[in-house]
């Protein structure tokens, strides 16, 4: 099973897909048609991107008659914004480097 974080990173790595996701974050729920009008790619391409985003849990679809509305699911970003543990790891490694430096400063 792929790491959920990898899936998130990969799904947001594509600039067109990220732009679609950002528009949904910014402007709220939209139809595929409305997204296509400003995406600069064809409707099938937009649908494909939305499929990838949906798989990653980043968007949810809602059917209403013949139209499908998509909305952003911000909760899916949680693994990316596990800020505390990431920064803790960052600083732990920096402390190691600081200690190395302090030893060198003795010489």
């Amino acid at each position, binding site marked *: 099973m792929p790491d959920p974080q990898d899936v*998130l*990173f990969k799904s*947001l*790595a594509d600039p067109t897909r*990220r732009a679609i996701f*950002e528009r949904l*974050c*910014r402007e709220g729920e939209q139809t595929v048609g409305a997204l296509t009008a400003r995406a600069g790619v064809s409707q099938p391409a937009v649908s494909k991107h939305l499929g990838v985003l949906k798989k990653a849990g980043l968007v949810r679809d809602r059917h209403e008659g013949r139209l499908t509305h998509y909305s952003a699911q*911000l*909760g899916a*970003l*949680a693994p*990316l*914004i596990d*800020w*505390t543990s*990431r*920064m*803790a*790891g*960052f*600083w*732990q*490694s*920096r*402390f*190691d*480097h*600081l*200690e*190395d*430096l*302090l030893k060198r*400063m003795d010489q």
Partner: protein
Amino acid sequence: MNETLTETRSVVVEREIPHTPEKIWRALTQPHLIEEWLMKGDFKPVVGHRFDFRADWGAVDCRVLTVEPNKTLSYTWAAYGLESVVTWTLTPTRTGTHLRMEQTGFRPDQQQAYRGAKAGWPRFFAALEQVVARID
């Protein structure tokens, strides 16, 4: 999930270091030394001084908030819309110094911070992970 997203984030790293506060202070405040363990930047221990730390994955915008030589140093730490404050506290001990770093983050429920963060975070942390992996 919303509960965790609305908390203010805080990271604390503390260590007993067998060196004097004065020596650690130099490593925390002299740019040529900071570069060796943290990042390259034009730091000056002057309240209000703006500087940035640069790495191959991007830059961190900073502003000095507190300078108490050999005791306390704090600066803002902003990267890709992530606002936080980094505070260093040096306490002398019998064998050296107790060094404490606390980074207090923004509240992710604040829309402005979120808008800035959502685009940058994946890139920022992907790069950060690469850097950390190389270090290890």
